[in-house]
């Protein structure tokens, strides 16, 4: 009977360990999938600014060929516009409205700036030049649509599945945390006469969870060259790299706490057990 109980305790603490690890991963994933958290992260990693810089870069490529001054860019597209368009994409991803990327403002600003430039230079435009300006405006509009459209295309695909995936993860998180709590209660009931036994096995689960979190982190680092990750654009790649590193650091923090609490629990509960034996 005593051997069976020991076996049951070990078995339950093993399942508890799986529960702790799964809950940890689900909490991390859930934390990142909340719209509010995602937007906060975008602010933190300065995503809007780096996308704006990429758009600017794209504009520069054509403005260099156009004979116009580079400072024209500041007049045709603002950081605010880029930020609002990204926000509209994120909102549509979460089913809060549609993505509306309007480039008429950019075109109108560009046309106005070109006309100002022509006026300042005292030039008269020929029909051919007017035609060239129209093509140039199309190219500039195309740059913006391409840069932001890339995020839109990705978000359209995600938007179709995201609500289901989010609700699945949320439900899974509740189930896994519920099951983990249930296992803890079973472990306590099984050792209701000497609670410190249950406590020491919880320590075992926590300690092994911590070690395994370190192990999983090591696997991720060794299998994926995170710093070299390239996903479509520089700003998107940098964002993914920063988020991945963030996740790895959270895993490490959880791992450290589990190891510390685990070993602490094992020692304290064993001291209580010995005191209990003496009584």
């Amino acid at each position, binding site marked *: 009977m005593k051997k069976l109980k020991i076996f049951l305790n*070990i078995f339950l*603490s*093993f399942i508890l*360990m799986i529960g702790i690890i799964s809950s940890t991963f689900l909490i991390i994933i859930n934390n990142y999938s909340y719209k509010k958290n995602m937007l906060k992260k975008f602010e933190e990693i300065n995503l809007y600014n780096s996308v704006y810089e990429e758009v600017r*870069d794209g504009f*520069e*490529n*054509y403005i*260099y*060929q*156009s*004979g*116009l001054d580079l400072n024209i860019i500041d007049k045709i597209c603002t950081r605010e516009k880029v930020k609002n368009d990204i926000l509209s994409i994120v909102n549509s991803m979460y089913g809060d409205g549609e993505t509306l990327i309007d480039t008429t403002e950019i075109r109108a600003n560009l046309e106005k700036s*070109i006309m100002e*430039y*022509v006026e300042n230079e005292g*030039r008269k*435009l020929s029909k051919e*030049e007017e035609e*060239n*300006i*129209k*093509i*140039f*405006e199309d*190219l500039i509009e195309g740059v913006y649509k391409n840069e932001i459209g890339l995020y839109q295309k990705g978000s359209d695909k995600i938007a179709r599945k995201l609500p289901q995936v989010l609700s699945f993860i949320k439900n899974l998180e509740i189930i896994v945390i519920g099951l983990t709590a249930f296992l803890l209660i079973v472990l306590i009931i099984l050792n209701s006469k000497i609670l410190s036994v249950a406590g*020491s096995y919880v*320590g*075992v689960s926590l*300690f*092994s969870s911590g*070690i*395994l979190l370190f*192990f999983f982190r090591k*696997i991720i680092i060794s*299998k*994926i*060259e995170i*710093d*070299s*990750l*390239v*996903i479509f654009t520089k700003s998107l790649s940098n964002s993914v790299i920063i988020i991945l590193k963030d996740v790895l650091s959270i895993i490490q923090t959880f791992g450290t706490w589990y190891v510390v609490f*685990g070993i602490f629990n*094992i*020692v304290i509960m*064993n*001291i209580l*057990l*010995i005191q209990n*034996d003496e009584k």
Partner: protein
Amino acid sequence: MQNKVWKLFKATIIKLMVVFLFVAIVFILYKVCLEEKIETVSGFVEVFAANKEFKTLEPILYGNVLLHRPLYGTEYANIKISSIDVDLPLYYGENLNLLKNGIGQDSNSYFPGEGGTILLMGHNFKSFLARLPETRIGDKIEITTSYGTFEYTIFESKIVHETDLGAAPIQQDEEILIIYTCYPINNIGHAYQRYLVYAK
């Protein structure tokens, strides 16, 4: 007291052995069931990853064969057209981002010394090739690479439509340097024409 410490030590070691057992079980499960799948996933991720630290050997010219060719996007030479005060870095590649920093080389064309067409391009703003139409037949163009310096003499120039690809044929019978820029120089908007200079 000593007995108590020994008991505590023993109990803790037993629990740590259980921890070790758990970790070992998960490790074995990972090796047996997951490692291959993770390799597949990481291989998939590698498709999106690029090793940024390319290391190449210095280019060496054997006859007209260039060994260790420069990588796309790298600055491998310097181009000088003294008659119009042009002294710019030369990049291997036609990417618009490269053209912001200097002169680009069509990646389908040949390198100096290889005996074929070297097709170069650059923007037409002041500090770059705005003065290219001012060059005259007989002017010199000098390209300095790590494997040698090459001098070419301009023998022709012309203005073509941007779609006239025949004006810059890539061939390997004769070493000809073609350098072009958008035209007209003081153009506003999209430039339809190209100003080409030929040298050998």
